[in-house]
Every structure is written in structure tokens, then in C-alpha cells.
């Protein structure tokens, strides 16, 4: 496999000066400052193959944006190596920009004062896209994103969802081998989110485009990525498959049982041998949390059915969001 992104011992430190309290402290700050190094990103390494779709997640201030900025060439690393499609981003920024597409959900890359189609055709000039490629891609993307009717609208008049669709298209027009998406679905409604996810998957399937997706929305990750990198306090906590997070880390499944006549908690505990049982009187139901590696759902259900009169039941798999929250909180030893 062709490694398109290589990150080796990447570190970024900022100098923060210690602020002193009060008026006297503030005056003192003016003249003498003590600095201390803050590690935004600390010695991280990973590689990404061409055509991979990788989620990059972490709580606020974890070092996500800092990493993305170093990969896109906006920020110079303090130490370590970065290589994206054969180019060192911060050393050869101009060449690097031809190889990447970037979407920031929080800010547009289109120009406020001109119409969408004019912005696209300006990008065509800037990136030197051939007439043929431009026409083809524009047509394909605008059909997929359903924005044909918006092409002549000034960017400032677009709604957030419309703008996001156009932004995504703008980042793909020059057919970059690597695309960075920083919170591309923030603030969007469900329908637009689906359209955006759909285009990302489509472009990946058709062009083998490598996708790096930084987000807080784990539904994005589940819908798009096979692999996820979790970062916190500048260090990588987890790097691996999305499915294997659920299997290996989120071992806690839930069995939810509905009864006509609710048994007591003590009864249930002795019969099943499970400890984590919750009772909800209102809905006449019991929730048993159990470890998938210790007991199968079939065994547990069989045991319950043989002792109690169950009206209905369901099994809930762990939500990625809950597992990741657990990881951030340090619940799991990784």
C-alpha cells in the first residue's frame, strides 16, 4: 500500500507566559515575563495509506486542530517530520496546496462578494484546472449535492447548509489526493449531513481520495471512516479500526427486558448472576448491562426466559459516542 501521509515524532510547543494576578501583577507582566512551554502536540507518529478514510477525534484542546494545521502547512512543527504526498507541507507550502483540499466547517473558503459559480471558476484559474476536468467535476458534484439552482447566488446569501455543500465542492475541484475536513457537518441538519457524507464517500470510492476527518460528531465517523485516531492532551490514545473499538473497548452491551409483572431486583440478580441491573418502574422494564466477553446474549436471554415471564426484549450495542466519552475520561486502559 502506498503511504500518502507520514507523521514521525511530530511535536508542537507554544510558549505561554505565566500571568500574575491583580493590578500589580499585570504591571509586573509588562516588564518581566516568565515563559513556559506548553505541548499542544507531543511526539505523535502515524501513517495513512492512499484511499483511507480516517477519523481524527479528541476533546476540545486535545491538539486536533494543531495537527491538522501542521499537516496542511499552516503551522510549522517544533520538531518531527511530516510528509504528505511526497511534500513537506510547511517547507513547500505552495506546492503542497495543489495536493490538498481543506474544508473548515466554521469558516467558508468562498469569497463573500461573488456568486458561487464565479468563485468556482476563480478556483479553476487559481489551481490551473483544465476546462474539461472543471466542467465534468462541477457537473458531477453539483448534481450529487443538489446545488444546481444556487450557482448564481452570491455566497453571502447562502444558508449554512448550502454554503457547506459549496465549500466541499470547492475543496474537491482540483481533485486533490488528500482532503482534510475539519468539522464539516457542524450545525447542519440531518438531511444535509447525509448529503455531505454521501459525497465524501463517493469521492473516496471514485478517485481513491484520502480523507482525514476531524469532528466531534461520531455519527460522521461511523458513517465514513474505517479507522479512527483518538488524541488527547497532545498524545495519541488510540489508533485503529472503528469496529474494533466497539468490540474490544465497548464490551458492555445492554439487555432490556419488558415485563407484565416486574420481578424484584434481588430475584433477577440471584437468577442471572449479573450485578449491573437497573430498574424502571414507569415502563415496567429492567436493564441488564453485561460484558460481551464473559457471556453471550443468547445465554443471558435463555437464563432470563426460563425463570421469568418476559413480554418483550431488546439488545443495545454500545454507542461509539459513549465509548469515546469513556476513553476521554480515562475509563479504559488502552
Amino acid at each position, binding site marked *: 500500500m502506498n503511504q500518502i501521509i507520514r507523521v514521525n515524532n511530530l511535536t508542537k510547543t507554544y510558549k505561554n507566559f505565566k500571568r500574575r494576578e491583580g493590578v500589580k501583577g499585570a504591571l509586573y507582566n509588562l516588564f518581566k515575563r516568565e515563559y513556559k512551554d506548553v505541548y499542544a502536540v507531543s511526539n505523535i507518529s502515524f501513517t495513512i495509506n492512499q484511499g483511507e478514510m480516517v477519523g481524527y477525534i479528541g476533546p476540545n484542546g486535545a491538539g486536533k486542530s494543531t495537527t491538522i494545521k501542521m499537516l496542511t*502547512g*499552516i503551522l510549522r512543527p517544533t520538531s518531527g517530520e511530516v510528509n504528505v504526498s511526497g511534500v513537506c507541507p510547511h517547507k513547500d507550502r505552495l506546492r503542497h496546496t495543489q495536493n490538498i483540499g481543506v474544508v473548515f466547517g466554521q469558516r467558508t473558503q468562498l*469569497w463573500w462578494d461573488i456568486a458561487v459559480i464565479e468563485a468556482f471558476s*476563480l478556483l479553476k484559474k*487559481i489551481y490551473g484546472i483544465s476546462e474539461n476536468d472543471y466542467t465534468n467535476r462541477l457537473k458531477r458534484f453539483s448534481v450529487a449535492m443538489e446545488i444546481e439552482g444556487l450557482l448564481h447566488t452570491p455566497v453571502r446569501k447562502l444558508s449554512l447548509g448550502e454554503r457547506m455543500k459549496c465549500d466541499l465542492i470547492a475543496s474537491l475541484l482540483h481533485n486533490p489526493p488528500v482532503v482534510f475536513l475539519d468539522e464539516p457537518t457542524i450545525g447542519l441538519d440531518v438531511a444535509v449531513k447525509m448529503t455531505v457524507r454521501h459525497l465524501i464517500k463517493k469521492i473516496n470510492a471514485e478517485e481513491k481520495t484520502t480523507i482525514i476527518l476531524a469532528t466531534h460528531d461520531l455519527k460522521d465517523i461511523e458513517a465514513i471512516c474505517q479507522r479512527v485516531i483518538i488524541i488527547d492532551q497532545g498524545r495519541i490514545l488510540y489508533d485503529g479500526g472503528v469496529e474494533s473499538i466497539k468490540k474490544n473497548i465497548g464490551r458492555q452491551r445492554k439487555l432490556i427486558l419488558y415485563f407484565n409483572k416486574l420481578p424484584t431486583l434481588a430475584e433477577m440478580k440471584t437468577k442471572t448472576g449479573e450485578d449491573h441491573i437497573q430498574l424502571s418502574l414507569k415502563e415496567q422494564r429492567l436493564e441488564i448491562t453485561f460484558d460481551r466477553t464473559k457471556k453471550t446474549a443468547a445465554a443471558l436471554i435463555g437464563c432470563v426466559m426460563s425463570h421469568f415471564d418476559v413480554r418483550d426484549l431488546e439488545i443495545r450495542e454500545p454507542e461509539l459516542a459513549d465509548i469515546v466519552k469513556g476513553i476521554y475520561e480515562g475509563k479504559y486502559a488502552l
Partner: protein
Amino acid sequence: MKAKFYADIFLSYSLQNLKTRLAYRGNFFFGVFGIIIYSVVNIGFLWAIFSNIDGLKGWRFEEVLFIYGMGQFVFGIFSVFFLNFAHKLPKHYIVDGHLDRPLLRPLSPYFQLILENLNFNDLMIILKGMIIMMYCFHLLQLKWHLLTLAEILLFGLSGALVYAGVWVTTASLSFWFKNMSGFFIALYTLNHYSRFPITIYPFWIRFIFTWILPLAFVAFFPSAYFLPDKGFNTTALFVPLIGCLVFGISLMVWNAGLKKYESTGT
């Protein structure tokens, strides 16, 4: 080749931008209305002062008005290209981080910032300055030739470089000192006073306007060049030089600032 590439992008963007702007006619008329009110107040003040005095150390109303017209002409040229850019650099681009975006395109970030912040409404200020200057040429019964037009254009462009240099340098200091917007108010005030004949000021103010913040090269020296017996008929020849110098310094500060941005993010 590269120049042609940039010129092409500049032209297509400006044309589109103008097109969108003209679509909002209301904005355009309000803009013109604002400029008229502003001018009436400014010129009215000048006129009120001069109707009470015989002259200002040998300077008559028409002559001071001429300096004002020249100042507006130059400021207009500067404003179309650099004013919004300079004003938005500290907060919008540096503090809020919108400078990230231009860094992600295969184009000079400086060029992109000018492009994104073109201010075509202020073309009207250039026009206004030209009308005032023409009127003063008429009042003062000065002769003009084709060469005069070329000279005014040269002064206009070099003066705009002085303005650009001063404003962009100030704005670029925000790369180190966060938000420098407050300094713009000071610059405006100084700019206002630099449009009077500097001979009315004490030595130290003249010194500042000539050597420290060379705003006298924007309007005063070029105007004096056209007025016969004022004694500054050659100083204006240095205007292009000063323009290039001040602008060059601002580019250096900008470049250093950009390096700083790349290493800290803000």
C-alpha cells in the same frame, strides 16, 4: 508569466465583485451620499475658518483646499486596495485566524488579502479629489498640461504607497501585539492634520510629518509642487522614493509577521 496569472485572477475577481456590488444599488447610493455629507462638512469647516481670517501664514483657502483635494485623491487610491485589508488584518485575520484560508491556496497570501478586501465604493473618493483639484486649478488660475496629469497620477500612486506602508505596518504589528486596531484612530487624526500646510506647525511636528510618519509626502509636498511661490517645488520629487521606501518596510514587517503566524497560529 506569473504577472499575467495574477493579473488575470485580479481582473476576473474584481469584475465579478463589481457586478455583485452594482446589484445592490441601495448600498452604492448610500455610499455616495455618505461621501457627499463628509465632504460638505470638511470643506465647510475649512471655509468657515478662512472666512474669519485673511490667510494661514500666507496660505489662502483655495490653496489649502487644493491640499485637501490632493489628500482625498491619494487616500482614495490607497483605500480601494488597502484600507479594508489593513483594518481587518488585526482582528479578523490574525486574532480570529482567518489568515489560515489564504495560506491554503497556491497564491501569495498578501495578494489574496488585497483581492478579498477591494473597496470599490471609494473609487468615488478618488473622483471627489480630482474634482476638487480641478476646481482649485481653476480658482488659482494655474495652467495645466498633459504632463501635469502624469505628475498627479505619479504623486497619487506614490502617496498611496506611503499610506499603504504606514497602515499595513501598523496592522502587521498585530502579529506580535495582538490587536493594534486602536492605533488606526491615531493615524486618522494625524492624517487629518497632515493635510494643512506644514509650515504652520512648529519644527517638531514638521519633523514628524517629514521623517517619522512621512504623511507630508502624501498631500502637502505634491500640492506645493504645483503652487508657484511656496518654496517646496522640488521636495515632491522625492515622493516616489519615499513611497517605495515606506511600502518596502511594510512588506518586510508583513513577511516577518507571517513567519510568526506560521509558528504560533495567532
